[in-house]
């Protein structure tokens, strides 16, 4: 084998991932790694290192060289002066918030020796109640993104803050009344930033503050203004609603407040005993969302038809009479009637919601229906809007085009990429004489702005934000800015007098100014500590409804194909350089590292296109080519396109991944556009879809095709009442011969897990939490196509029903921790063995990589390190690692451990409790997936303790284990999925 042949300098193309294999190598391409994986069984060596290796070998054979065999000398670096309450090696938790499109999600950030490593939900926060989303979990990776902007740029040349401060001071002098000053911010609820905004507009009365959010048009507040005459925030109470009708509202998925909604929804979804009630969810939507997967009844219609549906529903429930009911077809009419009847039967305890991409008119109709059913005040309340009115990006663009804008300050958001394409926003920015862009990355907007300022990460600066009910959270920084960034609050405050500001002074100053002087310090400290400012929640506003304000619904023209623009794992593109989010399989399609046009199976047949085949989409004068993905459940004549991909300037991970569908998105067709046409073109792209990997299907036998074993079990609420043990009864009842046997698991702690499939919404939060907690590497697109993804949790999505209109069930699958584990029998080196507490332990250092265990695992949950994924990680990249978990090397098998590091931590804490040695309490150990789960679907604990939550869950009649017939006795069990269909709609 010629080592020169595989020199790393060989190939400069291909993708790079900063958490993983190609981190900062700058040269090595993805495919190289694959081709070189087992070149004659050799290590990949630098050409120069062969000699070094021989030298080392020679040295190790001579006794004189023994010194070289010791580990290298290591240093202990204590601090010079100790800080109070800091114990080296012990993590601390700081309350903060993850701000998703202006809405706060209360979190706690785990900080290990000064570096944030993990996000946990904040149990003290009234809205998140201990849960965190996948985006929040992944935000910690972005702190260490080496592609973040590091210096101030003036044009294309690197500058510094001193130069900017000087330029800003002279700019501020010339503002006058602010006639030429425009500020474009992301949508913000930050009380401090909004107060700075108020001061700015007072000082510069002719200046304007614009806001833009690429995924929410602010239609809910606009609708409230329409019907109530004041800007109000709808606050949904899913936990009080027995019947929910969602009008294209993916409230548990893409919605900014999804955590809160999911928490509330699952409270009404939880069924502990047969006969207990459960809520019923109807959903009307065009693409199959995860909320759609939870729905008991889902109606596929075009997004453009939702307005008509909302109007019809309003008539059907008797909310309005003015318009005659249009009959879009019998099936829909039957659906509509049944839904309306169900709503009326549950008046006062039902809820109708509308999606953020639907117009204000739809929202207003939803409010109207709620009003007429008496829901306002019970399941739907209104409080002061957390967002303030601002200039729209369209108006701003008009002014910029007219040349009246002299100074444009952009506070984050990358509008050159996210703004509607017809505005030509990038070119408009270039025309403004002084444009200042505060952005985290050297992105599309940075390329056209005069000044580009590096933006501090939310974990690097003080800030604040509100949740939908108004409760405010102060964001605490966990680390000093790694790349010398500043926050939006700092830059906005700098515009007041031209002097640089510190976020701490501004944020604390605001909060002390709004509380009484005597109490200010106490309130500030308590608020920062708890993660919610005392008394900051808005109170309910009593409303008077003006139904006349809702415009009549005009029949819309729905000719041609509809294009629907959606959020993705990458948000609106802002997380494009976050490798965890790129690699998380999209909940419904299991697609990674790409975006596609979701088309229905029928449309695929018509277009003669298969998954991966390219289609050319034309909308007006614009067109683009994108791979198609045949998606069951997609509405006919509607194509879903996910935003956030096809970034041209973002960094190593996200650049050039997917297609920028924003190029078809105009101001008019911002949420969805009609009249598009699709044609299949000749090309195709092999997509990295994980849905067929690690299948638990039986292999085909001669003369008998393999079947999917009954791994997912579901029944209706009625069936559960009649036959409570419908799920475990699927299994054969006979006594089975025990191959291993002999272990006594009746004493001490015996760890087990129960996952309630009726609650799991498939949001991926657990998967990303597991990534962060267990140092799981990112492998990249090509390796995923080879089935080498490393996620310890596989979120299986099973469809049931017809290809066109199926239902879906989510099943998170981690290591089942079998008591009679088949993997253990076949390990030749005893690297995977059982612990007395029923854990299937994995000793990485013993593993020699035979992969027999993975072969023998019936659940396919073991993951093998084919490559040293961490090889080229930078010192900064290493900082995200959890020091309590070993970073695995190449050739080692790994899998879920039930977060054994957390078990041990709590065990030691219980033993060393200053109050005396005690047992671990139930609920004290939370696995990473369980902690973050917004649906509370996962319970974990000691199954030997009958009072524990997990023992109680396992005692429920719905509880079943997977593949019971092979007698592996898994410690993880599942509670069968339930549905609550409307008897009227049973076909």
């Amino acid at each position, binding site marked *: 084998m010629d080592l020169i042949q595989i020199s790393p300098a060989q190939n400069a193309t291909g993708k790079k991932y900063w958490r993983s294999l190609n981190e900062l190598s700058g040269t090595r391409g993805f495919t190289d790694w694959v081709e070189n994986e087992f070149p004659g069984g050799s290590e990949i060596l630098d050409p120069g290192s062969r000699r070094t290796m021989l030298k080392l070998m020679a040295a190790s054979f001579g006794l004189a060289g023994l010194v070289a065999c010791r580990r290298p000398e290591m240093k202990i670096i204590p*601090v*010079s*002066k100790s800080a109070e309450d800091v114990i080296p090696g012990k993590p601390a938790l700081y309350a903060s918030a993850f701000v998703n499109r202006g809405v706060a999600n209360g979190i706690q950030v785990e900080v290990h020796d000064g570096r944030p490593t993990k996000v946990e939900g904040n149990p003290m926060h009234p809205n998140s109640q201990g849960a965190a989303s996948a985006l929040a979990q992944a935000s910690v990776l972005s702190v260490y993104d080496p592609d973040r902007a590091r210096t101030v740029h003036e044009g294309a040349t690197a500058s510094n803050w001193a130069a900017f401060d000087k330029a800003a001071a002279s700019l501020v002098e010339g503002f006058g009344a602010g006639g030429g000053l425009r500020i474009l911010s992301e949508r913000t609820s930050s009380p401090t930033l909004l107060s700075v905004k108020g001061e700015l507009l007072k000082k510069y009365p002719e200046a304007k503050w614009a806001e833009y959010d690429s995924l929410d048009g602010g239609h809910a507040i606009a609708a409230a203004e329409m019907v109530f005459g004041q800007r109000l925030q709808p606050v949904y109470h899913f936990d009080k609603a027995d019947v929910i009708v969602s009008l294209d509202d993916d409230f548990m998925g893409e919605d900014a407040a999804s955590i809160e909604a999911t928490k509330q929804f699952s409270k009404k979804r939880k069924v502990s005993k047969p006969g207990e009630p459960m809520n019923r969810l109807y959903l009307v939507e065009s693409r199959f969302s995860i909320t759609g997967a939870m729905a008991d009844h889902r109606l596929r219609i075009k997004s453009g038809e939702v307005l008509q549906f909302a109007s019809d529903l309003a008539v059907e429930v008797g909310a309005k009479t003015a318009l005659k009911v249009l009959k879009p077809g019998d099936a829909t009419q039957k659906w509509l009637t049944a839904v309306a009847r169900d709503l009326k039967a549950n008046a006062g305890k039902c809820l109708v919601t509308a999606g953020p991409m639907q117009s204000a008119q739809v929202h207003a109709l939803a409010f109207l229906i709620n009003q007429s059913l008496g829901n306002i005040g019970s399941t739907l309340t209104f409080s002061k809007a957390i967002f303030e009115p601002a200039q729209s990006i369209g108006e701003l663009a008009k002014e910029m085009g007219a040349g009246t804008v002299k100074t444009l300050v952009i506070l984050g958001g990358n509008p050159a990429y996210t703004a509607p394409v017809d505005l030509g926003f990038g070119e408009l920015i270039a025309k403004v004489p002084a444009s200042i862009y505060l952005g985290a990355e050297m992105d599309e907007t940075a390329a056209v702005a005069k000044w580009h300022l590096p933006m501090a990460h939310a974990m690097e600066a003080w800030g604040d934000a509100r949740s939908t009910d108004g409760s405010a959270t102060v964001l605490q920084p966990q680390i000093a800015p790694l790349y010398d960034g500043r926050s939006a609050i700092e830059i906005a405050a700098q515009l007041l007098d031209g002097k640089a500001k510190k976020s701490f002074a501004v944020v604390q100053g605001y909060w002390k100014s709004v509380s009484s002087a005597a109490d200010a310090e106490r309130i500030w400290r308590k608020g920062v500590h708890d993660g919610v400012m005392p008394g900051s929640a808005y109170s309910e506003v009593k409303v008077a409804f003006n139904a006349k304000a809702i415009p009549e619904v005009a029949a819309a023209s729905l000719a041609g194909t509809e294009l629907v623009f959606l959020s993705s794992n990458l948000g609106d593109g802002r997380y494009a350089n976050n490798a965890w989010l790129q690699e998380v399989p999209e909940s419904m399609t299991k697609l990674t590292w790409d975006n596609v046009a979701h088309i229905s199976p029928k449309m695929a047949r018509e277009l003669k296109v298969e998954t991966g085949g390219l289609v050319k989409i034309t909308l007006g004068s614009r067109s683009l080519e994108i791979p198609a993905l045949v998606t069951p459940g997609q509405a006919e004549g509607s194509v879903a396109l996910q935003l956030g991909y096809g970034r041209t300037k973002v960094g190593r991970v996200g650049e050039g991944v997917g297609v920028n569908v924003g190029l078809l998105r105009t101001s008019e067709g911002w949420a969805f556009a009609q009249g598009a046409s699709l044609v299949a073109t000749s090309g195709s792209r092999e997509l990295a879809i994980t849905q067929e990997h690690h299948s638990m299907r039986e292999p085909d036998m001669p003369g008998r095709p393999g079947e999917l074993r009954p791994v997912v079990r579901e029944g209706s609420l009625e069936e559960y009442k009649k036959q409570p043990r419908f799920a475990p009864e699927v299994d054969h009842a006979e006594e089975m011969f025990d191959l291993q046997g002999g272990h006594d698991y009746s004493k001490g702690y015996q760890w087990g897990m129960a996952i309630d499939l009726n609650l799991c919404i498939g949001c991926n939060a657990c998967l990303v939490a597991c990534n962060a907690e267990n140092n799981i590497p990112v492998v990249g697109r090509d390796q995923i196509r080879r089935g080498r993804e490393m996620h310890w949790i596989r979120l299986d999505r099973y469809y049931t029903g017809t290809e066109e209109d199926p239902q879906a069930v989510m099943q998170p699958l981690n290591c089942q921790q079998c008591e009679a584990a088949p993997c253990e029998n076949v390990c030749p080196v005893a690297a995977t063995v059982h*612990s007395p507490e029923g854990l299937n332990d994995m000793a990485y250092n013993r593993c020699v990589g035979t992969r027999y265990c993975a072969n023998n695992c019936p659940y396919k949950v073991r993951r093998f390190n084919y490559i040293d994924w961490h090889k080229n990680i930078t010192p900064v990249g290493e900082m995200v690692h959890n020091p309590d978990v070993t970073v695995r090397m190449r050739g080692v098998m790994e899998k879920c451990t039930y977060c054994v590091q957390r078990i*041990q931590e709590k065990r030691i804490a219980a*033993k060393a409790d200053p109050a005396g040695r005690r047992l671990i309490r139930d609920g004290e150990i939370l696995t990473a997936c369980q902690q973050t789960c917004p649906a509370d679907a996962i319970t974990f604990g000691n199954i030997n303790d009958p009072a524990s939550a997990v023992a109680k869950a396992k005692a429920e009649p719905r509880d079943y284990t997977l593949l019971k017939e092979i007698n592996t006795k898994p410690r993880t069990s599942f509670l069968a999925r339930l549905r609550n269909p409307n008897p009227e709609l049973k076909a």
Partner: protein
Amino acid sequence: MPQIFPKKLDFFTRLSGAVIIMAAMSGVGLAYYVFSPDVLETGYTPVQPVPYSHKLHAGNLGMDCYYCHTTVEKAAHAAVPPTETCMNCHSKVKEKSALLAPIRESYETGKAVPWVNVHVLPDYVYFNHQSHVTVGVSCVSCHGRVDQMVEVKQVQPLNMAWCLECHRNPAPNLRPVQYVTKLDWKPEGDPAEYGKQVIAAKGINPPQNCSGCHR
């Protein structure tokens, strides 16, 4: 065809074969011995940036281990003290000593003193001081008589077999928690007998499974 080699050469062939095998085996045995932690790790005595004497401080002056290693009963790491701790005394005692120059410099500049790590465990081993010290395993069990060491030296191999010895039979290494840092403490009577009483009283059951130490 005549034989090329005489028959008696067989004996020498076999003999040399045997010699080679024996040499190889003794080579393996020797390598096994010299590469074992007993030889490689035990006795490691690196030179420290400041010639701090544990014998003087902990032995002669009788300072308690806890005075400097404050986190040993609270955390996994027995933290090396911040420079501040040294200066508690050395701002008054030997305040001009040339040997203490790095300490004063560290105190003034805020830069750390780069102490050399003596007892190093591999990254995949999660040893926890808290769980040992709070149950009555003394410092001396792993670190030896540090109070008699001028320069700290590794006295135990710290390999897995050595760890497991105690995890299988912790009795000889247990003592009342208040005497954990009293390195010369001896129980009255048989230490193993005493240890057995502690095990029974506290329900001590050290883990012997992989995830006890490897995560």
